[in-house]
């Protein structure tokens, strides 16, 4: 392999005028195809990596270089080589690393076989999103990707994942119900699908929902959340505008509904996270 790479690199040297290249070793040399328009080839000795800058090559050099890249590709067997856009290669590595996190592995192990493969696939994506979210990194693009790929169920499960429902209420529900004599996995799956389709015990505020839309979603869910074994309806919001919107609604609910218990938690350094816990003391007309 080492000799093969040296031979390959000699071919590259014949095409591109390469000054002295110093690398850590001839083994596992990383190759990037970049867009720096100054140098035709750059070496990153510490990373044992070379960057070949396609835009800096003239037409003949570019065509010849592409040919030897095809030779490079053809030299390897199935699954031994790939060309990946840098940012997606980073994402794939990140997915692999986060998949090994104990907190993520535990959740996925728990749900494996308990929910259908179709929903498990969405859960994997959502748990990845949650791990990125937990690092405090922006997740808007990832959330949008999940929404585009898995539609409303993906959006709902993403919201449930970031608010810890998969390691909390949904898991607890399974553990409690599985102790009952008439429990079956099919019954749990039916309940699970209903929960991720309708999120009956949670309401998530977002920029797109107006105050009146959010209020009607809350009141409508207040009428039926008990049916799903939940004692509370939770309203979640992130960001100043969502916090204010929810606080407005809460004050109106307190005025409009008798015998309602509302606990408001404002979290975060700037109090820009809100969790409202609502319960009805007795059967009520909302």
């Amino acid at each position, binding site marked *: 392999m080492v000799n093969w790479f040296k031979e390959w690199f000699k071919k590259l040297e014949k095409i591109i005028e390469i000054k002295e290249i110093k690398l850590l070793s001839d083994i*596992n040399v*990383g*190759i*990037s*195809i*970049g*867009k720096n328009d100054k140098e035709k080839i750059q070496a990153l000795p510490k990373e044992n990596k070379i960057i070949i800058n*396609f*835009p800096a090559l003239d037409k003949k050099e*570019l065509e010849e270089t*592409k040919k030897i*890249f*095809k030779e*490079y*590709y053809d030299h*390897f*067997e*199935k*699954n*031994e*080589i*790939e*060309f*990946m*856009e*840098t*940012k*997606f*290669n980073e*994402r*794939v590595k990140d*997915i*692999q690393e986060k*998949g090994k996190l104990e907190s993520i592995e535990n959740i996925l192990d728990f749900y494996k076989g308990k929910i259908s493969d179709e929903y498990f*696939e969405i859960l*994997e*994506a959502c748990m*990845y999103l949650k791990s990125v979210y937990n690092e405090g990194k922006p997740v808007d693009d*990832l959330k949008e*990707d*999940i929404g*585009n*790929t*898995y539609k409303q169920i993906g959006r709902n499960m993403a919201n449930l994942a970031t608010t810890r429902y998969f390691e909390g209420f949904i898991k607890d529900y399974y553990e409690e119900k599985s102790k009952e004599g008439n429990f079956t996995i099919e019954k749990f799956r039916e309940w699970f699908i209903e929960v991720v389709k309708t999120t009956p015990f949670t309401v998530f505020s977002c920029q797109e929902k107006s105050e009146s839309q959010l209020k009607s979603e809350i009141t409508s869910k207040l009428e039926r959340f008990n049916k799903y074994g939940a004692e509370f309806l939770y309203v979640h919001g992130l960001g100043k505008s969502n916090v204010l919107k929810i606080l407005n609604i809460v004050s109106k609910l307190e005025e409009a509904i008798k015998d309602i218990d509302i606990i408001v938690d404002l979290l975060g350094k700037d109090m820009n996270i809100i969790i409202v816990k609502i319960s009805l003391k007795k059967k009520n007309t909302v």
Partner: protein
Amino acid sequence: MNKKIITYDESLKNEILSIFNKGVDGENFIVEKDTNLRVLTPEGEEVKLGEFAGISKGSEVFIKSDIRSLIKHAKS
């Protein structure tokens, strides 16, 4: 053997595709240059240039950039 991964800048997608004799049709789908046939992912999906994340040998496995495809690839 560790998988060899050649990474490339987003702006060089077309150059990478041309290494494999691939181009793009009028609707921006990746095609075989010789036949103009659209390439497919292992799931049988056509691939738009904007969705193209990479190519893996097997013989030529096209990888899309959505989260489902990337997770599947990460596990392969």
